[in-house]
C-alpha cells in the first residue's frame, strides 16, 4: 500500500506556477488591445443628493466607447428593467426591518465616499480615467453620519425612511439574564470598543467579461469568493438564462471575506457593457477604490453586564452592542449575529441575553472580514473573563476553566440560533485539554518569574490569553465531480473558489487516498461554473469541510464504479480488489490487474474507436448481447458525483497566548512570544493548516496593534493607502509562532474535520488586550491600541491614581446606578 496522503505535509502543487508569476488572476486574463477598460466615477461626498450629472464633455474624448449614469440603467431601450433596481439584499433576515442596498450607479443620492456614480469604458484605463475627470456632477450636500455614536444619536439620518438609523434590532435570550445578574454575589459592567479594519487582499476586485453573440453566451472572470453566486445574480440582473452565463474564478489574490459580496456594481456593469459593445471589457479597481468602495468590518461598541459566583462562574451575562454596518446592508446581519452567538466561546454563560442594533452610517458597508464578527465577540467575552479574574484576585486561567463546557457535555446546545438559521449546537471539543496545552506552550505557570526578572531589569512585560470557538463549515452544501479519463488522469471539480488555501493540493490528497490513484494524476478545478454549477462559496472556514467532504464522497462513488467494472473485466470478486497508484488488482495476485484508465475505457461502451485503447470498448469487443450496453441503473463514464450538506455547522476551537513587552518611554508594544493551540479536528495537511494559522495571526497582529480606518467627521477616509493603513510587513510579525494541535474529530462529516481558515485572527484583539493590561496594570477597553493610545492611557491612569475618576475601569453596575 502507498502511504496515505491525508494528514501529511504535502507540498502545494499550485506553488510552481505562483512562484514564476504564472498565477492567473483576473487582471491577467484577456490581456491585449481588443479588451476595453472600465473606470468608475465615485462620490467624493459621504452624503449628498445627486442633482445633475453632465457627461457631455466625455462623449467626444478619443478612445471613449461608453459612458453610463443611472439614467442609462433606467433606459428600457438599452437595459433590462432589473438593471435599474437596487442590488440584491443577499441575506434577508426577519429582524432586518430596514434593509437597504445601493444601485449599480447612484440614483438621486450617495451615501458614502466611493459610491459608484458613473461608468466609463475606453480603450485603456488611462483614457477611461481622463474621461471621468470630464464628468460634472452637481451635488446637494446632506449632513453625514459617521461612527456609532453619531448613528445612535440619530441627529441626522443616513436614509430618510430609516428612523434612528437602525437597520435591525435583534435580541436572543436564554433564561433571565438580568434577574440572574441581580441575584448574583458579584457583578461587573464593561464598556468596550473595537475599531474598523478591512480584509485588504493584495489583489483587489476585478471583473472581465466577453459576450459571444454567435452562441449568445456570456463568459465572465471575476475575483470572487462565489462564482456560482455571481453567475446567478448576473443572469437575473442582465435578463439572461442561467445557461447563458459562465463564471470563472481562476486564481484569486486573497479574499479574506470581502470578495463574498456580489454582485458588485462593476460585476453587472462590465458584462452589460461587453454585451452592448460586443468587445471584451475589463475592470480592475485601484487600491484607493478598494479602500473606499469595497467593504470594511469590525467596528462595534459593546456594553457587558455579568453576574458571577466566588469561583468566577458565570450566572448571568447581559450583552448589548451597537454594530456599524455602513451605508448599506447587502450581507444582512451575518456579522452581528456571529458576534452575538460566538461571543459565548467555550463557556457556559448561565442565563444569557444579547441584543444588538445594526446601525447605518455614511461610510462604506460592513461585511465579513476573516473572523466575521467573532473577533469582536471573543473580545467582549475574554475582556469579561479577565475582569472577573481581576475582581476576584484569581488566576485568569482558573476563571476560564470553571466556565468551560466539559468534554462529556457534547453535543452542547446553547439554545440559540446561529448565523445559518440553525441551532447553535457545538459538536465536539476538549477545552480543558486545550487550556493545559496553551499554558505549557506559553509558559503560563512560570511567567511570574519571567515578570520578576524583567522588572529587575526595568522592563515591563505582560502575558495574555484568549479562547474562542468558531462555527465552521456552514451550509447549505457543496458538491464535487470526479472524472477518471481514459488516460488515467483524474479531473476533479468543485464549485467554490480558491484564494490561496491550497485547495488543488488538499483536494487531490483526498482523491488520491480514496480512489487509489496517483496524487500527480489528479487535477482540481475550483470556481468554474461550467465544471460544477451547483455551489455556495468560500467563506466561514467551510471549503475543506464542505467541498472536502463532497470530494471524498464523489471519489468514493467513482471508486465503487471502478471496482464494479474491474471485477467484471478481471473476473474477480469486487471484495478482492484494491486500487493502488491507479492500478486495480486482485489482492495477492499482482499479475491480474487493470489500470484505472482502461477501466474508464470500459465504462463507456463505444461504437467508434478513436485510439488503440478505446478499441477495447467497441461493440464487437465487449458487452453481453442479451443486455443493454449501459444498464438501466447506470451511466456511461467513470465518474463520481456527490454533494455534502450537513445538518449544522461544526465548531472548531483554540486558545492563543502572547507575551508582550511595552516600552516605558516610546510605548512600543513588542511581541516576545506568541503561542497557539488549535483544534480543527483531523488535519488534512498540517503545513497548510499552520500556514493559515500563521497568516491569521499576522492579520490579527495588524488588527490589534496597527490597523484602523480613520474616517473624519465628514466621512472622508483619511488613510486610504498602504502608507497610512498599517498592515504588518515582515518586520511586524514575530520570529516564531509556537503551534500545538489538538485533533478532536467532528462527528458531522465523513473526514472528522473542522474549518481552519479564520482561526488565527479571531482571538487577537482579546489576547493583546489581555497581555497589555497585564503589563500595564490598567484596563484595556478599546482596540486596536497604538503606541500613542497607550501613551494617552498611561497619562490618564497616572492622573487617575492621583484621584481623578477612571472611566475605563470595569465597575459594579449597581454602584453605577447609585452614582
Amino acid at each position, binding site marked *: 500500500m502507498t502511504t496515505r496522503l491525508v494528514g501529511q505535509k504535502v507540498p502545494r502543487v499550485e506553488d510552481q506556477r505562483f512562484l514564476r508569476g504564472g498565477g492567473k488572476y483576473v487582471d491577467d486574463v484577456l490581456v491585449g488591445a481588443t479588451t476595453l477598460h472600465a473606470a468608475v466615477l465615485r462620490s467624493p461626498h459621504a452624503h449628498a443628493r445627486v442633482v445633475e450629472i453632465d457627461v457631455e464633455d466625455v462623449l467626444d474624448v478619443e478612445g471613449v466607447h461608453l459612458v453610463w449614469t443611472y439614467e442609462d440603467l433606467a433606459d428600457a431601450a438599452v437595459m433590462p428593467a432589473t438593471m435599474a433596481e437596487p442590488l440584491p439584499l443577499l441575506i434577508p433576515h426577519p429582524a432586518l426591518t430596514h434593509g437597504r442596498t445601493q444601485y449599480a450607479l447612484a440614483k438621486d443620492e450617495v451615501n458614502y465616499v466611493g459610491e459608484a456614480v458613473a461608468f466609463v469604458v475606453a480603450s*485603456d484605463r488611462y483614457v477611461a480615467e481622463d474621461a471621468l475627470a470630464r464628468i460634472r456632477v452637481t451635488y446637494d450636500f446632506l449632513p453625514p453620519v459617521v461612527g456609532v455614536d453619531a448613528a445612535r444619536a440619530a441627529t441626522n439620518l443616513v436614509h430618510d425612511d430609516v428612523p434612528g438609523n437602525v437597520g435591525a434590532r435583534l435580541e436572543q435570550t436564554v433564561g433571565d439574564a438580568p434577574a440572574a445578574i441581580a441575584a448574583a454575589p458579584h457583578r461587573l459592567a464593561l464598556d468596550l470598543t473595537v475599531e474598523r479594519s478591512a480584509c485588504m*487582499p*493584495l489583489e483587489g476586485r476585478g471583473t472581465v467579461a466577453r459576450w459571444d453573440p454567435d452562441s449568445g453566451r456570456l463568459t465572465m472572470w471575476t475575483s470572487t469568493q462565489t462564482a456560482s453566486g455571481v453567475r446567478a445574480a448576473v443572469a437575473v440582473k442582465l435578463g439572461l438564462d442561467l445557461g447563458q452565463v459562465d463564471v470563472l474564478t481562476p486564481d484569486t489574490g486573497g479574499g479574506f471575506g470581502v470578495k463574498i459580496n456580489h454582485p458588485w456594481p462593476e460585476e453587472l456593469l462590465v458584462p452589460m457593457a461587453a454585451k452592448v459593445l460586443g468587445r471584451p471589457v475589463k475592470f480592475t479597481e485601484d487600491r484607493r477604490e478598494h479602500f473606499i468602495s469595497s467593504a470594511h468590518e469590525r467596528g462595534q461598541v459593546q456594553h457587558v453586564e455579568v453576574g458571577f459566583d466566588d469561583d468566577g462562574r458565570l450566572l448571568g451575562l447581559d450583552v448589548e452592542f451597537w454594530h456599524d454596518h455602513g451605508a448599506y446592508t447587502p450581507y444582512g446581519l451575518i456579522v452581528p449575529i456571529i458576534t452575538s452567538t460566538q461571543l459565548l466561546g467555550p463557556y457556559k454563560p448561565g442565563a444569557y441575553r444579547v441584543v444588538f442594533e445594526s446601525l447605518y452610517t455614511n461610510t462604506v458597508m460592513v461585511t465579513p472580514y476573516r473572523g466575521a464578527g467573532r473577533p469582536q465577540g471573543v473580545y467582549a467575552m475574554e475582556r469579561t473573563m479577565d475582569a472577573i479574574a481581576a475582581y476576584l484576585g484569581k488566576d485568569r486561567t482558573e476563571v476560564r476553566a470553571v466556565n468551560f463546557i466539559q468534554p462529556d457535555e457534547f453535543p452542547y446546545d446553547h439554545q440559540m440560533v446561529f448565523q445559518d438559521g440553525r441551532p447553535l449546537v457545538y459538536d465536539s471539543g476538549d477545552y480543558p485539554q486545550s487550556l493545559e496545552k496553551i499554558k505549557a506552550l506559553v509558559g503560563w505557570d512560570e511567567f511570574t518569574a519571567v515578570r520578576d526578572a524583567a522588572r529587575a531589569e526595568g522592563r515591563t512585560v505582560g502575558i495574555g490569553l484568549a479562547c474562542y470557538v468558531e462555527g465552521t463549515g456552514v451550509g447549505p452544501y457543496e458538491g464535487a465531480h470526479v472524472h477518471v479519463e481514459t488516460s488515467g488522469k483524474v479531473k476533479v471539480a468543485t464549485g467554490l473558489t480558491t484564494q490561496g488555501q491550497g485547495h488543488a493540493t488538499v483536494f487531490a490528497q483526498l482523491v488520491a487516498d480514496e480512489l487509489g490513484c496517483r496524487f500527480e494524476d489528479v487535477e482540481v478545478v475550483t470556481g468554474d461554473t461550467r465544471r460544477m454549477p451547483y455551489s455556495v462559496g468560500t467563506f466561514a472556514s467551510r471549503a475543506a469541510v464542505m467541498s472536502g467532504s463532497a470530494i471524498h464522497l464523489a471519489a468514493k462513488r467513482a471508486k465503487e464504479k471502478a471496482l464494479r467494472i474491474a471485477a467484471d473485466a478481471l473476473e474477480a470478486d469486487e471484495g478482492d480488489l484494491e486500487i493502488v497508484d491507479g492500478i486495480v488488482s486482485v489482492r495477492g495476485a499482482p499479475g491480474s490487474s487493470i489500470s484505472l484508465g482502461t477501466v474508464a475505457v470500459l465504462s463507456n461502451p463505444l461504437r467508434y474507436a478513436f485510439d488503440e485503447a478505446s478499441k477495447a470498448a467497441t461493440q464487437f469487443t465487449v458487452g453481453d448481447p442479451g443486455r443493454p450496453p449501459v444498464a438501466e441503473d447506470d451511466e456511461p463514464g467513470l465518474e463520481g458525483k456527490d454533494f455534502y450538506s450537513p445538518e449544522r455547522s461544526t465548531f472548531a476551537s483554540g486558545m492563543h497566548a502572547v507575551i508582550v513587552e511595552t516600552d516605558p518611554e516610546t510605548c512600543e508594544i513588542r511581541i516576545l512570544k506568541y503561542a497557539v493551540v488549535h483544534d480543527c479536528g483531523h488535519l488534512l495537511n498540517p503545513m497548510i493548516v499552520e500556514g493559515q494559522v500563521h497568516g491569521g495571526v499576522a492579520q490579527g497582529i495588524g488588527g490589534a496593534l496597527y490597523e484602523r480606518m480613520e474616517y473624519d467627521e465628514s466621512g472622508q477616509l483619511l488613510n486610504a493607502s498602504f502608507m497610512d493603513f498599517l498592515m504588518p510587513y515582515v518586520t511586524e510579525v514575530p520570529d516564531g509562532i509556537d503551534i500545538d494541535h489538538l485533533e478532536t474529530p467532528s462527528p458531522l462529516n465523513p473526514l472528522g474535520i473542522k474549518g481552519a481558515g479564520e482561526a488565527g485572527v479571531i482571538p487577537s484583539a482579546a489576547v493583546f488586550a489581555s497581555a497589555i493590561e497585564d503589563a500595564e496594570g490598567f484596563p484595556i477597553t478599546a482596540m486596536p491600541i497604538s503606541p500613542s493610545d497607550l501613551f494617552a492611557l498611561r497619562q490618564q491612569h497616572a492622573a487617575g491614581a492621583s484621584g481623578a475618576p477612571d472611566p475605563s475601569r470595569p465597575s459594579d453596575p449597581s454602584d453605577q446606578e447609585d452614582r
Partner: protein
Amino acid sequence: MDTSITLTVDGRRHDVVVDTRTTLLDALRERLAVTSAKKGCDHGQCGSCTVLLEGRRHLTCLTLAVAHDGDEIVTAAGVSALEGGAGDDAPTSLHPLQEAFLAHDGLQCGYCTPGQVCSAIGMLDEAKQGHPSHVTDDLEESVDPADLDDDEVRERMSGNLCRCGAYGGIVDAIREVAGGAPREGQPDRPAQPEREAAR
C-alpha cells in the same frame, strides 16, 4: 504622446510604442502581456510589482516605461535563467530561491510572490556586494549573506507586503538560500539584546 522603446524582458527583446505616461508595470502587463509582475497598489507601497531591472530589484509601478528604453528586465518568470538558477527558463524550472519558498511554504495566494521572489534575489545580491541595511550594526564591516540574521532579512524585505502572512516561510526560505544557519537552531532573536542596549 507616443514614443518607441525597446525592453528586454526575461531574455526576449520587445520593441513597443507607448504613451509616454505609461508606467513600466503597465507597459509590461498591458502592452507586452508579461503578467508575471503583479499590481497590488500602483503606489510603490506593496512590492508586488518588483522585478530585477538591470540586475537591481526595482518597483515597476513607480517608474515610467520611457525611462527604461534599452533596459534589461527579469521577472519571476525568468529568474531561473539567472546565475545561480537552473540556467534555463523552462516553465517548470525554478531558481533555488523559488525552490526554497516552495519547501518552506512561503506563499499562499501567490499574488505578492513574484515580487517577493525578485526582491529576495535582489536583496541577497545587494548583501553579497556588501550593502548595509538600516539595522546593520557595523557599517565598516563587510556584509556576508550567510551572516544575515532574522532582523537583517526582515529589514531588507520590509518593502514587500504579504496579506496572507506567509512571512515566516519567506524568512526561512531566504535564510536557507543565503547559506546561513536555519532559524530553528538559533536562540531567540540573537541580535536584539545588543541593539536594545545601544538604544
